[in-house]
């Protein structure tokens, strides 16, 4: 598996790490000769009316520091045409199926689309084929968005994105496009059902959970207590199926932020009940958050001292047993709780670890005999 993605600066053009899980477009792009017809789109080299045109070689100018090397392999599946159209001479550059060259060509394509008054439906077929081939490229998705805008027609979009997501349900670009289409054209119907389908297939799909939040935020909102309760129960149900699921716990936490975890009726009971069958560091962490909320709001339903003790106990459990890789975080939470709600001596409260002179020793250092 290779890993050069389309990235720039410390900032990735394609931050989508899925790109490294699958074939990388740059290092491993197979120069297979594609079928001429792909989803109804016919490449220019295969069109009868273009058959008489001679390829025009690319001119990179004198002494380029970096020359584009059109290797033998490259020419097999690329065609460069010079086109005379009236007095306008336009160069239709490489119609390649590698997304990497799409980045170079996109400017030409867009200028041409505008200048030649091209059939945008054709362009839609083209970009559909390209995206299906290279779904992790920022530019191809942005190009599609432009075509949708120019056509002012989103009718194919949700189905198209669903198709791409069926191949990779977490494709970051696909989700952004979907969100844009829905917001721009007010296509909210059926989305919650779609999200639920995806969560049925993979309850750990973080993108789907994010989409759930997106849909509800932009439609009913969470302020209706019936909606909130529906969401809480739905999430708890998913948690029962797969308790070690960061996304579900984050979602639960997120939707209850405003109201407060500790005051939500029945929540503590339902979560502690889960503890017996569904042990997970996320559950324990959630309880810590809940107890912290009870302390912060000085809730009368909770004994403050007992709640603090429970919270500290759980932090210790996480730091020492259940989530040791994040022991520094749990020790910080513990110290913060002690300082804020404890009645004893203050402990170092900054997020920094306590100074070396404290009793806490790093795990790796051996203790003196």
């Amino acid at each position, binding site marked *: 598996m290779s890993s050069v993605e389309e990235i*720039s*600066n410390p*900032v990735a053009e394609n931050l989508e790490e899925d790109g*490294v899980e699958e074939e990388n477009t740059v290092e491993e792009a197979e120069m297979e000769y594609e079928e001429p017809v792909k989803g109804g789109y016919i490449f220019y080299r295969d069109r009868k009316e273009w058959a008489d045109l001679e390829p025009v070689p690319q001119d990179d100018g004198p002494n380029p520091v970096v020359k*584009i090397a059109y290797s033998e392999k490259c020419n097999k599946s690329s065609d460069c045409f010079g086109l005379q159209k009236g007095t306008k001479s336009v160069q239709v550059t490489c119609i390649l199926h590698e997304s990497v060259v799409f980045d170079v060509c996109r400017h030409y394509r*867009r200028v041409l689309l505008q200048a030649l008054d091209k059939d945008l439906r054709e362009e839609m077929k083209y970009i559909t084929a390209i995206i299906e081939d290279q779904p992790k490229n920022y530019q191809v998705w942005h190009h599609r968005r432009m075509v949708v805008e120019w056509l002012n027609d989103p009718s194919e979009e949700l189905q198209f994105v669903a198709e791409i997501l069926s191949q990779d349900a977490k494709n970051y670009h696909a989700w952004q496009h979907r969100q844009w289409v829905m917001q721009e054209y007010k296509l909210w119907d059926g989305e919650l059902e779609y999200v639920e389908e995806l969560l049925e297939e993979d309850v750990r799909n*973080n993108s789907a959970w*994010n989409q759930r*939040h997106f849909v509800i935020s932009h439609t009913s909102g969470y302020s209706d207590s019936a909606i909130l309760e529906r969401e809480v129960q739905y999430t708890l149900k998913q948690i029962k199926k*797969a308790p070690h699921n960061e996304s579900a716990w984050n979602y639960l936490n997120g939707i209850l932020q405003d109201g407060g975890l500790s005051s939500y009726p029945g929540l503590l009971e339902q979560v502690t009940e889960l503890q017996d069958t569904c042990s997970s560091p996320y559950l324990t962490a959630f309880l810590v958050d809940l107890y912290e909320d009870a302390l912060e709001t000085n809730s009368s339903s909770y004994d403050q001292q007992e709640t603090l003790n429970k919270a500290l106990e759980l932090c210790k459990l996480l730091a020492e047993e259940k989530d040791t890789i994040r022991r520094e975080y749990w020790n910080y939470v513990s110290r913060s709780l002690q300082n804020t709600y404890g009645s004893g001596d203050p402990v170092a409260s900054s997020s920094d670890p306590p100074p070396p002179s404290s009793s806490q020793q790093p795990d790796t250092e051996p203790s003196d005999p």
Partner: protein
Amino acid sequence: SLSLLAESDDNNFILQGTQVKDVIIKPDAPNTLLLDKHADYIAAYGSKKDDYEYTLSEYLRMSGIYWGLTVMDLMGQLSRMNREEIIEFIKSCQHDCGGISASIGHDPHLLYTLSAVQILSLYDSINVIDVEKVVDYVKGLQQEDGSFAGDKWGEIDTRFSFCAVATLALLGKLDEINMDKAVEFVLSCMNFDGGFGCRPDSESHAGQIYCCTGFLSITGQLHKVNADLLGWWLCERQLPSGGLNGRPEKLPDVCYSWWVLASLKIIGRIHWIDKAKLRSFILACQDEETGGFADRPGDMVDPFHTLFGVAGLSLLGDEQIKPVNPVFCMPEDVLQRVGLQPDLLS
């Protein structure tokens, strides 16, 4: 905890009875830092200009040069690179509009404009380009809602907000844009989990979080971040192997050793990561034969992951590597020379 791991299917391991998506580091994976090999790898990269991978990546060449030069500088090996050739190349890439392209004959874009300015900062040669025009180009890409387009075609992304302010900061021209609106837009991309996405409502993603925390650092607005909540989300990226992923339920990748780690450093919570485990993951991503780092152990190396592996190790405190600035991903001594000291939370 490795003894509790049993393989179920590819990259899905059972840990304490639940499925975890992660990699397993083999016992013979590299565990020492092979700096000389990495320097040799980068110095030789691109010397064969008709190499297939090299030519296909021309569309991002400016960033490729930035990655190579930065990692060489961090290793104290910048002198091995061809300064004059690179400076001439950059001059040829500035367009009339002021923007800079990835390579000669390509179209300008904010991403490559930043890379070019970073390279010229490394070389203390900012004035070989028309700085005023660069500023005009960046200003011109700001939208009414404060966001930035990447280029004239209008793609909006918080990455571009970062590119814009980082470029202007390096040029000393931060005051030329509408700062309030720029900040407003980035904050509108903050999600319920404390993270940031590319646009409002987009899923939180470590790369975007790096861009947004970097942005807020440069613009002096880090107090708007919920550091505990975001720090928690970020340290949750660490998997049993020690590596970091970019969002929940994804595989670890060495480049997240940069994006997650730098973000944590910026918000003052870098110690929430298990440093020893992360270090051993990063070292395992080296290729002992070719030099360089891959995204994860055993994969093919490239300059991008090489930079972020080395930069990550620098943030973790490796003394063989120069200190790296977590906001700009450039050597600290360069930023000191430029006079930039972006805020970090403590």
